[in-house]
């Protein structure tokens, strides 16, 4: 079975050790985490983990079930076949000597990114978007010199309406 990226969302109780438990389960069962993003939801007792997993279909099914077994995990969605809005946020420091700044500035505009800090030798840029866009921006910056990258990892939300098949799969 081919290995592809799957986006899984888990709503978890805000209790000590939940993140460790989820991370440990992935390690113990040899599942590959591509990215993991955690943040609070509108309910202060519940956080959402968005996990991108590199796996084939039967493995991702196990991932979903094993997540469901963790008691502070309240709900698990497998958003693999879903039409998703996916966003990654990146801060990147790009070497920017004065003679290159105009070029870099036009690149930043093309990507609808923005400059958040500037120094004598580099600029810090904030980029958001789907993963491909972020990767493309890094590639475009490479010739100038990428000094530092910090990324949040993917967060995602399905667009509406959702497919009936997906809704049926949602039960934990």
């Amino acid at each position, binding site marked *: 079975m081919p290995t592809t990226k799957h986006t899984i969302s888990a709503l*978890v*109780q805000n*209790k*000590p*050790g939940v993140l*460790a*438990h989820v991370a*440990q*389960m992935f390690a*113990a069962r040899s599942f590959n985490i591509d990215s993991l993003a955690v943040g609070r939801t509108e309910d202060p007792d519940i956080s959402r983990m968005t996990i991108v997993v590199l796996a084939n279909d*039967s493995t991702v*099914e*196990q991932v979903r*079930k*094993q997540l*469901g*077994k*963790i*008691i*502070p*995990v*309240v*709900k698990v969605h497998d958003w693999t076949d879903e039409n998703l809005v996916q966003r990654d946020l990146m801060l990147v420091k790009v070497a920017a000597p004065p003679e290159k700044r105009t070029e870099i500035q036009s690149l930043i505009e093309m990507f609808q990114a923005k400059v958040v800090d500037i120094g004598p030798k580099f600029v810090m840029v904030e980029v958001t978007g789907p993963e491909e866009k972020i990767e493309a921006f890094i590639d475009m910056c490479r010739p100038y010199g990428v000094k530092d990258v910090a990324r949040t990892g993917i967060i995602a939300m399905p667009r509406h309406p959702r497919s009936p098949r997906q809704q049926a799969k949602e039960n*934990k």
Partner: protein
Amino acid sequence: MSDKSLSTPPKAGGKSGKPKEASKPEMTGSEIFCQTLISEGVETMFGYPGGVVLPVFDALYDSPINFILSRHEQGATHMADAYARATGKVGVVLVTSGPGATNTVTGIATAYMDSTPMVVITGQVKTPLIGNDAFQEADTTGITRPITKHNCIVKNVKDLERSLREAFFIARTGRPGPVLIDLPLDVSIAKTNLNGSEQQMDLPGYRVRPLGHLRQIKRAAEAINAAERPVIYAGGGVILSDAAQELTALVNKANVPITTTLLGLGGFDENDPKSLHMLGMHGTAYANFAVQECDVLVAIGARFDDRITGDVKRFAPNAKVIHIDIDPASISKNVKVDIPVVGDAKNILTELVNFVEHRDRPGWFERIEGWKQKYPLVYDNNTEGIKPQYVIEEVSRQTKGQALITTGVGQHQMWAAQFYRFSRPRHFITSGGLGTMGFGFPAAIGAQIAMPDEVVVNFDGDSSFSMTLNELPTAVEHKLPVKVCVLNNGYMGMVRQWQELFYGKRYSKSFLQHPSFAKVAEAFGAVGLTATKKVEVPEIVERMLKEKQCCVVDFHVEREENVWPMVASGSGLHEMAGLPTESIERL
């Protein structure tokens, strides 16, 4: 588990779940601990004291709970495990922080792999000291997270009762398992009211679905009714859900041959002609051949472990697979399942039996009978020395298959599974999943405490027994008439067998120098006997069974006996070595 009312968490703190009047007297965490355990029905618990749990032990001093003091925390955990397996109740362990907690790790992992309901309470250093590398501090929840169904640290005494109730609820419902509560010293002495509005269980992520889906049950019944060569493969889940009676009803009504896993032994009467006995790596040829040739395989409370399937790609190649299990994560984990039925085995089998119909299946039973005739479980007993299998057969004969058997891990465990004929559930207690050497003797103690009127026999290896014989004084102190049959071959028998077969007889570190186990037993105040010749066996077994106190019999058995038949790791389940005739069945 089988209790339907448990499908949603009940409210703690009285039937109504309403907050009790605020005028209740304040209690310490330790008093709350004792009171909650009593209200959860705990009569017996196991453990070992230490610094940070002294307040809890002080509260236990006035409590009616029967506390069994082990000689090592691992022993306490195995005792509680066996107590739970023998009774179906939750086994309870109380130990101190740090080394007390880490010593329970092997016992907790054993219980986790075999789905034993257990609650382990570990002391912890005071909350302000946590993370400071304090004396006897260990990150107990961190260490035990991968081997518990759930664990948590209680940092506020107001959460203690709820956390304990949640622990018992989680341990015994769904697929049972060990739950650990880490209790810091300051929480055990802090005071609060026992009942309060915050005492309701808070488990939004824990749902148990005990009832099987009716449509899936009907589909399973249709497949069984249409099958020409069906086989039932029953595991420990049948025992855990107390479904032996329902399983027997299904086997008899649908007229289907049945094999069990190691942990499923006793789930069906092995004296019944429809029983194929155990399957797997050291299973019977007729069970393995039947599974490989069947057209419908009905797995009940089993998880397609690698010791069962052999080469998983070639496992039951022609079978439509029905899988009944309460854990959805077990479905299609190792073997692709055609008809999954998620739920409690007892409930599902009760329903399923209504939809199956009797079929004669004459050709299938005839073929199986042919295998049974051609490939029975045998060993050469024409020796002067003692064959280990003979000891087990003799104990089986003299106890009429009615004893409660525990084992360590290795050759003797497999021989016990092969040559003792089990007819009742909860009478074979062994470490299947984790394969924990040293499990047998403390398990026998726990089982005997749970079942004072049963004859409890621990078949043990010399190496397994050496790991936990420090519990001899526990058995002596409580006047437990536990019988220990040490099948002493002076080797780690199974390791030696693999070295003989796969490592050119290079017996690297599998040879052990032992003391006289009889003298060891006597030194601890137990009865110690030794047998070196086959002719002595019937009499010494008889004497052992008559003993009213702990009795260790050191059977000096044939040293290089192997466990046959055997499916080598990576082979197909039908590719069995060591069958009575040389020809390997063509399937």
